[in-house]
């Protein structure tokens, strides 16, 4: 009898293609996405999109520029930046994970500013560490004379010849260097030079100091749950089809369009409320400036809720049964969220997966909220993202109404 039950369950699974996909296709797909991300998080594997700029343009810096350009794991991109401010703007806008600015030719002058500057966004702090680390490795292996020259100069400046007294003085000076570095770190948290003084790291903070990446996770979680609840809510379309309610409603003067629009309206309002709850929590507990940026937030939230609602309704209109819709929605939400950055930051992903992410609403919604809360961009810079979301919403709505119209005639 026990085996009979097991056999019945096996047949049910075998004959339900959706459940089979959920059981055997989704897990390896999710594994694939996570493996692509986390197998590449070692220093050697992570790919970082960087903007390179050589402001010195001496023979030595040209060689250095070419060496950085050819460095494994760095993906230099085309840009038109002319100075540090341009680079900072591009990094802040999310076009690059980091920027490398060769400010001057590296030499033994310890009093000058660090000749190489790595610029990164504090919301992608890992990118700054990775790029700096690779530059350090490059300088030590390919340009060892730079480090040695600076070390010799340093020793010369600090201790002179290695007499007993000098040794004591050197020890003292090295200890002092540590103290100085610590003091610099406290005094200027955004600019941190490497111990040899060759590389300076500049971290760009968000619009709100209190943000600390919270706005990213608020947005990522919000769109994930908006999609989940919209998909679940949209399944009522199938239940009403099965129960005959749709038959009754389409016989009325409003037709099926009224039913679908009504559901779209409710699910959009529900999504908006959910997003508001999440961001209100982020504001209340973590201090992000939600009230101060409420207008742009509302536009993005409204578009995110509408996109989620109509994608859910589209999916429901394409499914024949509740079971099929449940399976398909789980599949869709998990894949969209994994690729779109709701489960882990997209800058950790390999380049091709990052590009694929732009096909998901998650990526556009998260970037839009990042623009608002972290990068504090102007309205004109938000328009492209909003346009994409508006386009997804309109296409999903048109397809849903087209599908629903067919179902109303044929049901």
């Amino acid at each position, binding site marked *: 009898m026990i085996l009979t039950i097991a056999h019945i369950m096996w047949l049910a699974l075998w004959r339900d293609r959706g459940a089979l996909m959920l059981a055997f296709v989704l897990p390896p797909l999710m594994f694939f996405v996570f493996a692509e991300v986390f197998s590449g998080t070692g220093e050697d594997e992570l790919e970082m999109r960087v903007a390179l700029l050589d402001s010195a343009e001496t023979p030595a810096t040209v060689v250095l520029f070419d060496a950085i350009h050819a460095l494994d794991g760095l993906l230099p991109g085309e840009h038109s930046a002319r100075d540090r401010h341009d680079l900072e703007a591009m990094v802040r806008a999310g076009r690059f994970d980091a920027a490398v600015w060769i400010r001057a030719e590296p030499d033994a002058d310890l009093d000058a500013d660090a000749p190489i500057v790595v610029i990164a966004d504090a919301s992608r702090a890992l990118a700054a560490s990775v790029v700096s680390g690779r530059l350090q490795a490059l300088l030590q292996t390919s340009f060892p004379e730079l480090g040695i020259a600076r070390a010799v100069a340093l020793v010369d400046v600090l201790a002179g010849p290695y007499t007993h007294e000098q040794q004591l003085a050197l020890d003292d000076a090295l200890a002092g260097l540590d103290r100085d570095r610590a003091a610099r770190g406290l005094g200027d948290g955004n600019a941190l030079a490497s111990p040899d003084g060759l590389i300076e790291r500049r971290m760009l903070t968000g619009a709100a100091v209190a943000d600390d990446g919270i706005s990213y996770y608020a947005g990522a979680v919000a769109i994930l749950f908006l999609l989940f609840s919209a998909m679940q809510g949209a399944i009522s379309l199938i239940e009403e089809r099965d129960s*005959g*309610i749709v038959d009754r*409603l389409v016989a009325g*003067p*409003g037709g099926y369009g009224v039913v679908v629009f009504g559901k779209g309206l409710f699910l959009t309002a529900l999504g908006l409320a959910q997003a508001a709850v999440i961001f209100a929590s982020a504001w209340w507990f973590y201090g992000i400036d939600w009230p101060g940026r409420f207008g742009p937030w509302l536009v993005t939230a409204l578009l995110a809720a509408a996109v989620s609602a109509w994608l859910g309704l589209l999916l429901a209109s394409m499914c024949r049964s509740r079971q099929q819709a449940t399976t398909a929605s789980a599949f869709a939400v998990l894949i969209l969220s994994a690729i779109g950055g709701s489960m882990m930051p997209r800058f950790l992903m390999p380049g091709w997966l990052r590009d694929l992410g732009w096909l998901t609403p998650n990526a556009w919604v998260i970037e839009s909220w990042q623009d608002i809360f972290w990068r504090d961009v102007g309205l004109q810079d938000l328009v492209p993202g909003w346009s994409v979301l508006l386009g997804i919403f309109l296409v999903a709505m048109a397809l849903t109404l087209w599908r629903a119209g067919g179902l109303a005639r044929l049901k």
Partner: protein
Amino acid sequence: MLADPCRLAAGRAALLLNIDALEFAFTGRRVLTGLSLSVGRGEIVALLGPNGSGKSTLIRAICGRLRPDAGSVSVSGVDPHADPQARRLIGLVPQQIALYPHLSVLENVRAFGRLSGVASNRIGECAEYALETCDLQAVAARRAGQLSGGWQRRTNIACALSHSPELLILDEPTVGIDPPARRDIESLLGRLAGHDIGILMTSHDLGQLERLADRVAFLKDGVVAASGKPADLIAKYYAGQREWDVMLLQAPSTRQAGLLGQIGLVADPADGNWRWRGLVDEQTPAAEIERVLDGLPVSQWRVRRPGLGSLWRTLYPPVPETRR
């Protein structure tokens, strides 16, 4: 019953529903092939036919959901496909319990009334009318999903009445409920017809239709194969005949089958050839038939006047299992 406060001031055409030479093909298959049918005010018309005979397609066409390939449908003189407002004249009661189970009876009636175009300032009195008509006041506050089958069926009808339609279309309105609840609904339908509402219904309960329907229409191959008052149809097809219905204890031998055939009985393949039925001239002496049956393993037999069931079997003869 209350006077209907929500009835639209529509024209008072004698024919409420008029279908003329309706044709419709679906994915190349001709489902309706020139069907004509009418329903008058206060008339109960039953639509009969096996699965695939075109009943559902016809109901969709009446509700304006399909554009006919040829012919016409009009409700109170208006084409429901061309003019969605004409659909306000129609109330549809689906075969399923088409209610929101988490809403109360009253909330369901109000919701479907609003969705059918009743203005918010009139929905209260329209809902009250529907509840009273269907004797639902006692359960108005209860959730639809918690009611028994009979109450749910009545609520199903009340929702279709919430916008005071002139034509009520019911698809198997009494399926799955006990005889007392069925009789209540039959009584309700009779009262509605008395209120000038035209009723078009489908049902497989032929006895119920004989009691209730003013006219029946048998659909076959996309047209009305036979229609009229039940008594007239039976008289027309079976004047001077009686139907014999014989149940055997086992399938008969070839010789026994031959004897049954001689007296005009034929096997019903749906019952594994254990059941034999046939129309016999009422002048034929019963003793003659009983003599034949005496030599057979008969468990029971009866003789009755032919009814709609007989006509059904004549129009839709049983298909042997091997041909299904």
